[in-house]
Structure formats: C-alpha cells, structure tokens
C-alpha cells in the first residue's frame, strides 16, 4: 500500500522545542492512565468470576464500537449499517464451525475479518460517493438486504433459529471454552480486543489517521489540497469493516451461536448510540459508552424490566443536551475547567 519508511530527520530541528510542535510529536505517546482500562479488565476477571459472561459481551461491544469509531468518529462516515460487517464476521465463524469445516478460533477470526473486509470494500466503493441521510439509508438498506439474504438461505444459516451449539476448538489447542464459567472466552476476547486496539490506536495517530480527521473536518478542503479522498474513505471503511467482522466472529465463538440478530438494525443502532454516548472520534469513548450503556441495560433491567428503557432514554437525552461529545467530552470539559481554575489562582 504505502512506503512506511520514515525519512531521516532533517538537519535543523529548530522548532522541535516549540510547544505546538512538541505536543504533536508527543501526542501518540502512551500516557500512564491508558493502562487503567486493561488493568480494570483484568481486575474484573478476578473480582467478578460470576459476571464473565456479561464481561465478555461488554468487551465485544467495545471492539464493535471501536470499529465504528474509526469510520464514523475519525473519517466522519455516518453509517447505520455497521452490523452488516458484524454479521458477516459472525456468520463466517458460525458457518465454518457448524458445517464442521473449520473450528480453530484465531484463524477463524482472520477469515471473519477478511469476509467482512470484502463486503466493506465492495459496498464502500459504491456507497461512499454519497453523504448524510443518503449514505445513512444506503448503509442501512445494504445491511437489511444481507439480513434478508441470510434469512432466505435458511437451510444453511438456520435463519431466525440460527446455528446451534457451535463447537469451537480450544484456543492454541489448550484452553477450552467453558459455557458455564466463560473465563477462557473472557481472556481470549480481552486479548483480541487489546491487539485490535493497539492497531486502531496506531492508525488514528498516523498520517493516514490525520488525513481521515481532515476529511471529517472539511471535505472540500481535502479535495483542494489534492487528497484522494474517496480512496482514503474506502480504505478506512474496509479496515473498519474488518474489525467489526472480528467483533462478530468473537460474538459467534463466545456464544457458540449465531442467528439473524447479528445483522439486525437494533445492533447497528445500539452500537451507534453507544459510540455517541461515550464520545466519538476519541478512542476511549467506545469504552465509556459501552460500559455505561450495557451496565445500565443489564442492571436497570433487573430492578424493573421496562425501567431500563426509561432510564436509558433519559440518559441519552441528558447527554445530547448537556454533554456534547458524549461522556468523555463532558469529562474533558470538566478537566479543562478544573485546570483553568487552578491556573487562574
């Protein structure tokens, strides 16, 4: 794709010391707090062995939301059809396992990613010419078509009833998936999430990532500086699709089950909500959004089933009104105010 060689630094770096320059040069460096989500995830494993099923679902949602963030948050591709890729990945894993063709989990995930990427690339080529509501509807309808196709291929996909009792080979041939106490599933998912996250993080801080941000911030200007906008968008969309596919693959593996809901509008809408809720275009928004949404759904639903809908609705309204850029955005504002307050003293 592109030459990744980093040219030797120019002789004079007289501006390296300048605040702006040094911020930009240090921006990608890891900060201490970036370890916390992962530490928390490991802590969760030991603290709540009874909640690993929920935990696994949470991790998968985070990954799915991250994939969307790449397309929507960074490149500004507004899509309501991202479940198409989640489903593509899920069915790739599911079909391979159910028909006894391939059950090795990690390679299955790779295949899931490829399948999803293929669909992402194809649809991206056609759809990414459009924008706004049109793009939204086109992505949505593409997903709906896939779902209906999966329903029609009932004999292979099991349709609404899905593909039952998938047996997935042990990870590295050693670690069995345990249905009752899904510890293997949890750690496995966590590992995959970490790998994908590192990849995405590298991507968004790269020159490519920056040009995506440029496209999001001002399309016409990107054209005017001679950027091959469409190609960039398609590449980004394809990568995003691949990661969504991995999330779907994980979902199929950890549930040992796939059905049409993998391709559902509910799923696409939910992940969109989660991302906006957490804050898009900000990597960690996906984490916060997923945790907030799922925790609320999971525990409010226990207290009083239709309460979670109400509570969730109110939360969304609140965030939309008072926390532009989602929970993370709110946090950033508070932090900035606090810093400013300190400075003024």
């Amino acid at each position, binding site marked *: *794709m*592109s*030459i*990744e060689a*980093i*040219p030797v*630094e*120019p002789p*004079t*770096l*007289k*501006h*390296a010391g*300048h*605040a*702006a*320059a040094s*911020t*930009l*040069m*240090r*921006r*990608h*460096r890891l900060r201490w707090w970036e370890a916390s989500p992962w530490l928390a995830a490991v802590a969760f494993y030991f603290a709540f062995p009874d909640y690993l099923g929920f935990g696994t679902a949470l991790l998968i949602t985070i990954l799915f939301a991250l994939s969307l963030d790449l397309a929507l948050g960074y490149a500004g591709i507004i899509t309501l059809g991202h479940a198409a890729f989640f489903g593509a990945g899920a069915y790739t894993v599911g079909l391979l396992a159910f028909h006894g063709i391939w059950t090795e989990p990690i390679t299955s995930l790779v295949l899931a990613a490829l399948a999803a990427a293929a669909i992402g690339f194809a649809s991206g080529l056609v759809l990414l010419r459009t924008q706004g509501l049109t793009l939204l509807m086109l992505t949505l309808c593409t997903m709906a078509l896939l779902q209906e196709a999966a329903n029609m291929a009932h004999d292979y996909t099991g349709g609404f009833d899905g593909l039952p009792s998938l047996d997935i080979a042990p990870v590295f041939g050693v670690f069995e998936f345990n249905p009752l106490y899904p510890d293997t599933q949890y750690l496995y998912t966590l590992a995959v999430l970490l790998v994908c996250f590192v990849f995405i993080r*590298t*991507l968004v*801080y*790269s*020159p*490519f*990532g*920056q*040009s995506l*941000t*440029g496209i999001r*911030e*001002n399309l*016409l*200007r*990107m*054209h*005017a*500086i*001679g*950027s*091959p906008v469409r190609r*960039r968008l398609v590449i980004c969309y394809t990568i995003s699709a691949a990661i969504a596919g991995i999330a779907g693959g994980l979902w199929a593996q950890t549930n040992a089950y796939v059905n049409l809901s993998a391709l559902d509008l509910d799923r696409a809408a939910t992940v969109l909500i989660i991302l906006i809720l957490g804050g898009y275009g900000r990597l960690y928004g996906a984490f916060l959004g997923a945790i907030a949404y799922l925790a609320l759904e999971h525990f409010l639903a226990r207290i009083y089933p239709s309460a979670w809908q109400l509570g969730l609705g109110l939360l969304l309204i609140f965030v939309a009104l008072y926390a532009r850029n989602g929970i993370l955005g709110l946090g950033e504002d508070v932090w900035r105010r606090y810093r400013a307050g300190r400075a003024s003293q």
Partner: protein
Amino acid sequence: MTEIRLETCALSRRFGALLALQQIDFKLAVGARHALIGPNGAGKTTFINLLGGALPPSRGRVLLKGEDITKRTQAERVKLGIARTFQINRLFRGLSVLENVCISVAERVGAAPAMFYPIGRRTDVIEESMQLLEMLKLTTIAEHRVSELPYGRQRLVEIAIAIGSKPDVLLLDEPAAGVPSAESHIILDALERLPEHIAILIIEHDMDLVFRFAKRVTVMVGGAVFAEGTPREIESNSQVRAVYLGQAGHG
C-alpha cells in the same frame, strides 16, 4: 516578456442558460502578483474554480507551463502546483493551527497514506509546517484550535494550508473577505511575505489592498475580461471607474 506559468484559451463555462464565463483568454506570469477585480457575479470565483479544477469548463483550455491540463482533476492539478484558498473559510476547525498545515504538508510530501507510524515521527513534516507558520508569523498561535481564533487569523491559516502544498500558482479568493479593515493589513503583510517565484492570482474587493499588492490587474464584468493593465492604468481607466470602482468605492 516574462515566462508564462498559467494560461487560458477561450475558456467558457455555462450554468444551464446562464453563460457565467465567456471566451476568457488570460495569462499569469511566473511570480506574478495579479489581481482579478469586478462586480459581484462577474464570474471571478467561477474562473478560479475552473483554473483549480473544481469545475470543468464548458469550452476552452487551461495550460500550465504550456501543457494542457484542462482534463486534469483537482487533485492532479494540486500535485502540478496549483493551490487555492476559499472565499468562505474551509478549515479543519477542530484541529490546531499546526495540524491544519501539517495535513496539507503531509499530503504533499506523500506521507499521508502511511498508517503504521505516528505523524509525530514525521519531524520533517512538522518542521516544514512550523517554518511555514513562522513565515506567516503564526508560530505564536500554532497550538490554538482554529475555531477559537479571530476571523482574520483564520484567513491566514486558510492561506497557510494552501502554501503547504508548495504551489507555483496560488489562487486567492478574497483573502481579506470578512476581515475587519483594522485587521486587513495583517493579510497584506502575510501576502507580501510569500516567496517571489509563486504566481499569485488574487480576487479582492478591498481596493487599497489590490493597488498596494498587485503589479497587474484584470477587470472582469459579466463573465468577460473588461480591461487589463497595471494598477495605475486601471485606476486611471475611466470606463473601469464608471462600471466598477465608482460603485465599489473604497474606504
């Protein structure tokens, strides 16, 4: 006679029934400081869109260094050295001034497609961007978010981004538009600091700015070239005064 950088032959563009540009023959010399003036709706911006490749012409040709680029896309023309600014800011408002320029520079030096190392390692890109900001006296605000800058400064960023692609031809669409006259001098200072070799075509309504900056002026009226000459010739041209300067007046 100085060497011609950009040239148009019988360039025309129509929108439906309206003939926005008719038979424009125009020459832009190397290192030119050329102003394009005329009443609203004279077709000035359309002309720039045709030169930059944002719009295809209905008829006629555009030549860069004698080579026909009429069929070239906007992106290709940028690579060939034609950059432009917009009448209304088109900036990456959420990003810092430095990043705004970096995006442009990275695109030019071919760094933009790179995925697997952070932009921060491209110190060459950052360095060049900083130098560019320095030239435009913007280093002090390099860290600021564009959206937080006063409008005048934003107009400078607009120019900086264009310079980022190291053009030989720079098309400026009303760089001082919307800038309070108290500030408009900073635009002029900036323009005067641009490298000599760049051929600059500027659309501007602020006549002081035009006559102080431009070495040559073309007056466009109703989609056609009405007059061309040195600022003094144009200023003294009675017809021009009649159709344009008079009504435009100046502060």
